[in-house]
């Protein structure tokens, strides 16, 4: 029995200063977009609480596990070593969601983010104001730069692909 497929409804990248970098929604009713903005924002509460707990325990764990479930989504959190928070909303199904699967999604998203921020042109016209300057990452999510969106969408598509292929295969057999 294959592990149940996860449906990714939305992804949010939040800067260490809690400014939104990029929020993408994959859920079909587009009207819900605002809802995921709210979910991303409210998740920060839990994320910060978890980070504090992890710090207190001297843990370097990035994966913050299930943050909460609300209405029809389960919200998971991840914090990169440089404190960028990644929050995903998975469609709520009554099955066990393996942490390993969620971590895989997070790793893919983290890689997408890393690759995008590594773009040197993001900082081409910005004043160099030190390492704590997050303009580059905020830029990466702005509408002007498409690479980051594209990579995140690819992750979303890949997950959706898993879902469709598995569902179609069950149809055939």
């Amino acid at each position, binding site marked *: *029995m294959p*592990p149940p497929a996860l449906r990714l409804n939305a992804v949010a990248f939040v800067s260490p200063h*809690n*400014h*939104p970098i990029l*929020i993408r929604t994959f859920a079909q009713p587009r009207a819900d977009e*605002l809802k995921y*903005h*709210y979910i991303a*924002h*409210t998740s*920060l*509460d*839990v994320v*910060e*609480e*978890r980070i*504090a*707990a*992890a710090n*207190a*325990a001297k*843990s370097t*764990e990035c*994966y*913050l*596990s*299930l943050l*909460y*479930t*609300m*209405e029809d989504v*389960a919200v998971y959190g991840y914090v990169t070593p440089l404190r960028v928070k990644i929050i995903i909303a*998975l469609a*709520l*199904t*009554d*099955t*066990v*969601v*393996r*942490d*390993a*699967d*969620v*971590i895989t999604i997070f790793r893919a998203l983290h890689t997408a983010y890393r690759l995008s921020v590594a773009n040197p042109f993001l900082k081409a*016209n*910005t*004043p*160099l*104001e030190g390492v704590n300057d997050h*303009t580059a990452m*905020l*830029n990466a999510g*702005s509408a002007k730069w498409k690479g980051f969106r594209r990579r995140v969408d690819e992750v979303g598509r890949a997950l959706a692909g898993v879902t469709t292929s598995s569902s179609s295969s069950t149809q055939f057999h």
Partner: protein
Amino acid sequence: MNSYPPELLAQLAPVMFVGGLEPPQPPGQGKDPFAVLSWRLRESLLHQRKVAIWQPERARKFQVVIADKDVRFPPRKLVPPDDPQYQNSHSPLSPLTPTSPLYPDGLIAPIWIRKHTTLIPSVLVVFMRIYEYPQAERAPLETEEIDQQRETEERRKDNELCAEIAQRKRIAAERGVKLTVVLLASRKMLDEAVLDVRLTYIRRNSGLDPRAALFVLSPVSQSEVGEFVHSLQEALWEPALEYYTNHSKRVRRKRNRHSQAVSAYSLPPLRGEVRPLRTEGWSVRYEYKLACFAEFRGEDEVALRHYQDAYASLLVMFGSTAILPPRTKRWAEAKVLADCINMKICKLYLYNNEHSLALSTHNNHMRKFADFSRGWGIGEETFEFWSWLARQHRAFAELLEQGTRSTLTIPTHFSTSPPAVAAAAAVAQTLDSSQRTILEMEAMRMLGLNPTQALQHPGFYYYMAAKCTERRRERFLSALDAEAKEEPTTTSPGFTNEKKVDHLALVLETGSQLYTRSYELFKAFSPSNTQGHSRLTLWIAYCIAQTYYESGKFDMAVRFFERIAKTYRREKWGSLLQPLLTAWYSCAQQMGDMELSVRLLFEMLGHGIRTQQDDADSTQEDLSAVLKSSVPSITEEPFVIDSSDLEPILVSSTVFWRNDVIVGEAVAFQLSLTARPTVSMASLPFVSLSIHFSSDLPPVTIRHTPAVYEGTPSLQKIDLGYIASPTSEAESEDKEVEGSLRWRPDGRIVFSGSVSSDVPTIIKITKLILTLREGSWQIQVPLFPSATHAGPTYPKWLNKIEPWTFVPIRREHYSTVTVRHRPHKVEVNISHHAPALIGEEFPICVDVKNFDDRDMDIVVDALLQPTEIDEAENFIRIGDDRSTSLVKGASLGVIAPGASTSITLHLASAGAAYDRVIDISVQSRVVAVDDVVSGLTPPGSPTAPSLADRDEALRTLVIPAVEPIRVEQQVLYNRSLRKQPGLADLATYSHEFWDDGDVGEAIVTTSISCTAPSGIVVEAVKVVRENNNQAHVIDSSTEQSEEDFLSEWLSGDEFCDRCRIGLAIGEDYIQGEDIAGPGMYELSWRRILPDGTYGPTATSRFPLPPLRPPVDALVALLHAPPSGKLHVPFLLRLDIRNRHPSRAANIVVHLETDTTDSFVVAGLRSGRIPILLPGAEESLVWKLIPVECGFVKVPHIRVLDRRRDPQDLAAIAGDSRGGEIVRIVDVRWDGRSGAEDGVQSDVVGRRRSVEEQTAQPLILVLP
């Protein structure tokens, strides 16, 4: 949960009826002690347990009901037991009884539970008074009679009591209820022996059980009452359980009978629509009853199982519309029952901390009934569905809330130490999928979490309930719409019903209540470290505000919006702010708060939010409309929009062309204001913009003048001209320019100008005030260029307007310009003639020349860098100011333009030769004209020093220092030729006695060479004597011919001096130790300067070397004259000294003559000398007559020490002549270098003595 019958939800516990506690009101002071006791008992019993839903404790506590003493229980059946119909009749509540509310097909009614909780107990406790004979008038003589009288009286009363108890006993026994009697007696009574007898009598006669049926209690204190109540419950617990077990047994029997004989069961014939209860219904009934009885007993596991069975049977019933036709009364009852059973199951799981099971049960319940609802025509599109779902969520939330108040803890789904699990997951991932067995797959499942089964705090479920209520409202509104449109709708019975009540108000009310409840819980459960509002609560607050808005409570909504907006603004979540501002604005419109509307519209402009999505002009049109249609509340003052924490409506950026200018120099700047791209503000009637600068620059005001041509260009440039600080008071009026202040979307206006300052300062643009005037509105919008974020890209400088050309300014500080003083033109020259010589004061000349056109006050500081090389006293000196590190504030005075002055700094270096580092700082300060006139600036004004026009020139010098003179010294030691003093010579005791016998003299040869590259002139050389008791300077060659030294020494010149030092070694001298040199050479010298003159006198000192004289053991000193005359006899003396500290010597001397000898010898040829004691000396003299001329050798003398060193075995074996050869030293050539190290020098000395022994002294014999 209020919407459900409380009976179906409450936690059940054994019921105890208590009778006989009559007074229901508290007795006053000094009342009958039994009344007090009754009251206390009553209170204590009633407080044992409260009816509640969440009660997981398993303490043995009864649900106590105060009943009448003569309480009657409801009859088991409607027919009396003696009726022949009794067997076939049923309980009054049974669906089979036509008068029952459940007739004919009801399941379980709350009344059934109520029957068991309020009408029938499991135990009945009756309090009664035992009769006590009054004892007041008891005379001693009447004892017998009175006792008898008393006994009969007591017996009579007891019999009455027994009858009463027996009566109750019978009633109780009918329902299987245990009866317990508590007899109240006075304390005195307890002590009487007769009491036991009476009690036994009473029990027997009243037919009470032998165990736990009769208690006696006397008036006692409150705490003892508590103890009694506790022990009473303990004693009655078992019978109570038994009671409920019996019920369970009975029900189980009936269930089994029923299920076995389903077909045989005689159904009453169908009459019309009345259908009897189906098998499934009976099953539900029985299971539910079993569950309840188990719950009464406190057997949670059993109860859970039965509830689940009942629930399953109910589901079967719901599954078929034939069994349970929808929208009937029974159907509604069954739904309530199902919901309640679900709650019970959840609760029982939660008691056991099985959170996920509870949650999944609840979810399943909602899902199943949602499915059913669709079938019943009340699916998601109806408000009934959402109403029901909201109720489910709310009930669950309430259950959790009650639970969290006592024992329930919400699990956390995050552990900070998951590495083991994560690692296992990673390992499992790497495995080939074929390798994974089913078991491993199962194990993998343990690595995850089913999010639907993760229990969260009740706030989430309240939130869900509130959301559902919102949906319910939406559906209801659409239903109303549909009705209004006369569309054929499936008007449900509920709809017409709901329309009667003010449905909207109700829904909004509950919605906001639920949200508020959720908000409170989120606040309560939020981590303690987030101060104030957490984001989750803000979200819910936003939901509350929305609800308020929808229910028309705009003022409330606005209050919420205000608080929420603060956080959203701070965290820059524009996407969240957008709907909030829109809703807020609508509120403000509804409230007619024009000022708030204006403020919000400005904020929306700042965020680029349109009031109508498809119209970029909508926001400004709204704003214009508001401004035109209203008047401000205060017309005297302009209305200021405080935008310090808002997004400004225009993005401003200031660029100064340079960031560093000198006083009086003008610097160009550009201020660009850019409008938001998404909204238009072209028609907003801005009248002026004033630009405020820091420091004392006057503000500039731009007045709006309509553009000459139509339309607003996307880029304009307005020239501000030159702005300078006012030179006098009269001139300080503000500068004004004119230009068009209209922006189109993404339009930009660049204001360019130049500024200068007469004083050093930092210039920046501090504030921009944009003024808008419309009707009686005058609005000021302050903008703060520095407060807004700098923007993600480099600022751009508008280079050309046709076509636009921008130059990016790639500098860090572009928004400010620093004005500095002109640098001073002061030249500093430093001259010196390196290298410096150690010991001298080396002059360094600092020459300062003022090339500036102002008078300069010059001050010099010098710092000698400390070194770690030595502790020598290097120092620097300027004038009389001398320091080892810093000489500060050496003033050169005021220097007029063109003049120059100099100061000499002296460096004195001592110690080793290395490079000295000196920092020299020459500070100049302009002597201001008014300084002279009005004196110095008042001390204490902090700005004074920073404003002074100062400058500083820094120089660092590295000066090599070398030694001017190098000295090499060599020491030779001569043996003393004086006769050894005798052992007891009195002179040796004299204070002045100089015992040089051991070591004699040391001769120090000092060669002094000049190494100073410049050459020196030596003025004096002398030996400074520092005699001590082991060494003293006897004489020195400098003392004889000093003039030879005193001349100019050039580099490489070398001079030599010999110095004789007398040595005396006392007994306290340890061999190998240094004797301090008894003096030093002192050279006074001057440097020869390049111009041939001499520098200042310096003195170098070189101490005499430390002395380390060698020590002898046995030695023979041969005194031979340097020359002789042919045929003239002379004496040859040999002194043999035993310098050994402890050993005596046995000396044999041989004079070996040879035929070739040039001498004729008279004296001892061969003989033994008396034993030489340590320290003793013996002289032998020969007379020699030379017979040959020239350098002739004296005859060979051999001295042997016969005494053998017992340890020197080699010498014994090797020397056939049987003795050790003693070294003979020719005193004319005596001279030894210093003992280097104890033993080694001994060895060296011995080897040399062997060599010397063969060499015979030479004498020049003259004819």
